[in-house]
């Protein structure tokens, strides 16, 4: 079974506190680095490792990003991926979801994976668009919001797709296929000291536009049909009244405002 997990390095200080490392493994210190692996991608990698353990095979992690994005690939190798690929080229910069998905798909076509796994969305852009678009460019089926995967045999699986409020679709899929997973799908394993030591012996490669023979009109800024045309300050027209007084008084005014707001 060939498994590829697509991951992304993101910047989000909110999540720094959630990265926990075995204190024995001091070598990966993230606290001073303003970037992390997108949290749901850890679940995607965990699911990939479990599929690999069930069927045996090879698990590759891939990301598109600047050279510094190697950090999240090292992390994935320490967690148990066999091989890591960084798609990095100035031509890839400024990509929207369509151009990102095209670029990742061009790499994936060279691998012909049986299963592609992604986190359902990143915590920075949160579009949740790249995964289905990769699948479409590979001409394979996809399921998003996957909370459970069960293999019927080596070529068929059923996925449980969350449709909110506890509702779900039960989806039967023939491989090759892409699955975009949500948090509840698994408990992510801890990285071990052994995993970190093994990581340095694993294959790591960087591929650029020339290696992938990507169409220059379809990557990066050139290949992106959506563009940022402006940014502006959010206009906020609020009363901005700040309550003062003793705690008892504040609670009383708070209550009065709740009653006023809820009735009017």
């Amino acid at each position: 079974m060939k498994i590829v997990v697509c991951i992304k390095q993101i910047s989000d200080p909110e999540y720094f506190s959630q990265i926990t490392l075995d204190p024995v493994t001091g070598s990966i210190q993230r606290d001073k680095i303003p970037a992390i692996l997108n949290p749901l991608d850890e679940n995607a990698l965990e699911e990939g490792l479990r599929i690999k353990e069930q069927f045996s095979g090879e698990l590759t992690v891939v990301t598109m990003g600047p050279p510094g994005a190697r950090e999240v690939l090292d992390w994935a190798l320490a967690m148990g991926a066999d091989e890591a690929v960084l798609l990095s080229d100035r031509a890839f910069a400024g990509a929207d979801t369509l151009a990102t998905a095209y670029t990742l798909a061009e790499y994936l076509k060279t691998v012909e994976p049986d299963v592609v796994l992604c986190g359902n969305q990143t915590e920075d852009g949160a579009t949740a668009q790249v995964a289905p678009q990769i699948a479409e460019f590979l001409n394979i089926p996809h399921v998003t919001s996957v909370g459970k995967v069960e293999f019927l045999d080596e070529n068929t699986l059923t996925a449980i797709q969350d449709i909110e409020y506890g509702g779900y679709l039960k989806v039967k899929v023939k491989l090759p296929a892409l699955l975009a997973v949500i948090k509840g799908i698994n408990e992510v394993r801890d990285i071990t000291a052994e995993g970190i030591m093994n990581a340095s012996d694993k294959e790591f490669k960087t591929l650029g536009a020339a290696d992938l023979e990507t169409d220059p009109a379809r990557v990066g800024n050139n290949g992106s049909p959506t563009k940022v045309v402006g940014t502006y300050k959010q206009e906020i027209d609020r009363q901005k009244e700040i309550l003062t007084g003793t705690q008892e008084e504040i609670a009383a005014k708070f209550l009065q405002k709740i009653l006023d707001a809820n009735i009017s």
Partner: protein
Amino acid sequence: MSNNNNIWVWIEQRNGKLMDVSLQTLGKGIELAENLAGKVAAVLIGDNVENLAKEIIGYGADNVYLVSDTSLKLYQSRAYTRIISELIALHKPDIMLMGASNIGVDLAPAVAARVKTGLTAHCSDLQIETIDGKQQLVATIPGFSGGMIVKIAWNDIKPWMATVSSGVAEKPGFDENKQGSVIKVDYEAMDEDLQIQTVEMIEKEPASMPVEGAAVVVSAGKGVKSKEEFKLIQDLAEALGAAVGGTRPARDAEWVTNDNLIGSSGKTISPKLFISIGASGAAHYTTGFMKAKYIIALDKDPSAPIFDMCDLGIQADLNEILPRLLEQLKTS
């Protein structure tokens, strides 16, 4: 834009019922069509849903493309993607909108990739603006710091596609006398459609009150550190008959589910009263409740940006204020 200015909206149905988020999106489509002097068409896929096509016309669509087949009763991702992509290729709409339900955000990116066009996710608004003398669709999405709003536009490739979150637009009024035509489209399954099959759909009643549509919402942020503190928020919500929402840390702590996550990657809501507790006010969160009628914010940090975005600010420890508030609520 072309002379026709055709705006399309995919309308999702589940078990023969139209989804609210789809009708809200239709409302946005109607608004854009009015600005462009264009027409609104809906795409409806399902089994035995002709009555729903007529209902959609009552909600204001000029035309409905109806694709009906027993195999299309449930959402089938490859089949739906192919049907919509082929209709787009044939009729060349200028704008294509979809409601951002979990199924909508599964389908829209696949369609956009197949027709190779731009797609913008969870817009907080969509407007027509004139840029360089051309009428352009412009999406506004929340930026990730400092209360910035980012505007996104599309290049010349059509249709311009966007997914619209629940709560962004209003469901249009229903007029049973509204005239429109239902255009039936034949469907024949192809092998590629069958690589993936939805075999079952289970819909459930929400376990807790949904934040969407609730008059009062109490929301927990990162400053809510323990189960005991979250219990105070639940108690307050219960006393007020309010729904409980939260930020990503509250979701990650599993105090609220993803369904009640407030903000750009969750729900956009407009309750009468929104009470934010222990959240500093990052833009991706505040964008979820900017349309609330009245906003009360409680946070320990007096310099938190949330105090610039609220009607009433309480700069205090929730453990000091909430128990007293609950006590007074009991006796009020």
